[in-house]
């Protein structure tokens, strides 16, 4: 079975992202701050974000995608996993992470022309790359990205390829060319199946992502990551239909915490309930 998993590089959760109020018409400046005294500047130039020296990691949701892909590789002899990523050169790091976890091959799509892409544009590029890699039985996505968080790309890709979408898979089983998943939504769990090839998105019930092993890291360092330009894919940069017009900082609630300290739980409850009722939120 041939599995492709699509992953993305994102700034770490711990990073403090702030929109700079002093912006101009051409470039909007984001500040990425790890600690108050070491500020990494993140710049968006026509929608393309660069991260400065902010810590960058594999999108945490995509680690589950890699884990889900590797589980299927282990379940079916002779399977391979190819990790696929759109990003700048630095995104090779997340591909190395996927390789170290156990992926066999990695492809980076990188092109200076990729300044401003939206989710449909990203999906278009991915589908061309998926076809170029060829013969995929299963394309695995994480549920969403941490940075943009739209969670749309897997469904775009399924639609463009005309393949079944098995969304939000918590468990996956492959038998006789049919993929059966347990779909995890708010309301319930559904068992859904489709004939391969399929596009899938996975959620965390798939299981904790494995840590890269020492052997895996050594192996990853030897794998040659293919880098494809848009020319290699034979396409132009897709025009963005969805664009950002502004960045703002959310209003910060500066209220300091008010500690309720009383002798007994009953006294605490009395004081706290009075405060909560005064907030008129019930």
């Amino acid at each position, binding site marked *: 079975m041939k599995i492709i998993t699509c992953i993305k590089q994102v700034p770490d959760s711990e990073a403090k992202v*702030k929109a700079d109020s002093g912006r101009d018409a051409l470039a909007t400046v984001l500040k990425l701050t790890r600690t108050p005294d070491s500020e990494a500047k993140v710049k968006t130039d026509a929608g393309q974000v660069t991260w400065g020296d902010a810590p960058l990691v594999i999108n945490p949701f995509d680690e589950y995608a890699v884990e889900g892909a590797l589980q299927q590789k282990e379940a079916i002899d002779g399977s391979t996993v190819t990790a696929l990523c759109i990003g700048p050169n630095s995104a090779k790091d997340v591909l190395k992470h996927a390789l170290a976890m156990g992926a066999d091959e990695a492809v980076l799509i990188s092109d200076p022309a990729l300044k401003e892409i939206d989710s449909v544009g990203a999906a278009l590029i991915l589908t061309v790359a998926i076809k170029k890699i060829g013969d995929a039985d299963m394309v695995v996505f994480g549920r969403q990205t941490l940075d943009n968080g739209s969670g749309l790309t897997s469904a775009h890709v399924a639609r463009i390829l005309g393949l*079944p*979408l098995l969304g939000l898979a918590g468990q996956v089983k492959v038998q006789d060319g049919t993929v059966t998943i347990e779909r995890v939504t*708010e309301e319930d769990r559904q068992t859904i199946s489709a004939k391969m090839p399929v596009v899938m998105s996975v959620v965390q019930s798939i299981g904790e992502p494995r840590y890269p092993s020492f052997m895996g890291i050594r192996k990853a360092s030897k794998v040659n990551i293919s880098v494809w330009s848009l020319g290699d894919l034979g396409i132009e940069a897709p025009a963005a239909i*969805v664009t*950002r017009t502004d960045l*703002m*900082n959310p209003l910060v609630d500066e209220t300091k915490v008010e500690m309720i300290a009383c002798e007994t739980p*009953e006294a605490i409850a009395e004081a706290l309930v009075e405060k*909560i009722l005064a907030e008129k939120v019930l």
Partner: protein
Amino acid sequence: MKTFVYVDHFKGEIQPASWEAIGLGKTLGSVSAVVFGLGVDAIAKAAFEHGAGEVFVADDSSLEDFRAEPYASTLSVLASSQSPDLILFPITARTRELAAMCAVDLNTGVLTDITAVEIDGDKIIATRPIYEGKVLEKTVCSGKPVMVSIRARFFPKPEPDVSKSGTTTKVEVKSDALTTIEGYSASKSTVNLGDASVIISGGRGVSNNPSLTPPDDMEETDAEIWRAHQGFALIGDLADLLGGAVGASRAAVDGGYIPYAHQVGQTGKVVTPDLYIAAGISGAIQHLVGMRNAKVIVAINKDADAPIFSIARYGVVGDLFKVIPALTAEFKKKLEK
């Protein structure tokens, strides 16, 4: 502006944010609701009552359960023939897939997880939180129709008026499903955190009640879960009393204390209730990004240095197993008055 609102439901249970979407649509012009499923007359009726001027209905056995492909094809055909300027969706797992597929069909885009909408001439500018809510971005869509998925509880819900009715138009059904639904296993505790105005959440600390003695022959992991279930029962009592939902931190979900559907945070649900009570949750950043926009946050934790206190309005350093039942008793007393 000609606006369609897709009314999302699960087995007839309507996602309340669908009505918030109708409310938003009515501030922009005329609203037509779109209802898909099998036996959905009651949903169409409710759509009129909540302000839809007309309702497009696809009522067909092939649409009994939500499946992205036939729902998207049916909606895309309808949108192509009716040419709305805007299609609004309440954001759910289903509509995320539905809108994403229609965007491909209709050569347009989706503005998703929207918390505010403004109109500039004929342009729709939508605001959404990104980078886990650390920054807000304003986005526009140059395609037509513009598709906007709204987060629950950010737009006012119209009051239903049962006297309202209108014309229902049948829609051509496209049955091009590529997946088969083999079965459902309804989770024991259904929860809708997105729409809850009150959420009481428990974390790792919920399993630490020292006054409980598990049965002798119980394994250690089972005993931990056994303790946690009793802790969550206390939280459930308070949630029931306040008409709220029970949430959980990832640690509690990973520990097997409570199903994933309850998880608040980065890999769970982002929530914005009016009142959020965090009990036995230390407040890892991954949890905070999921609940920090709640109106009033109350934290109860044994550890005075727990990060959760840094974003709370009110804090209690104490034993949740004593404080939560005391709160339930006190609320009962006050709310009965």
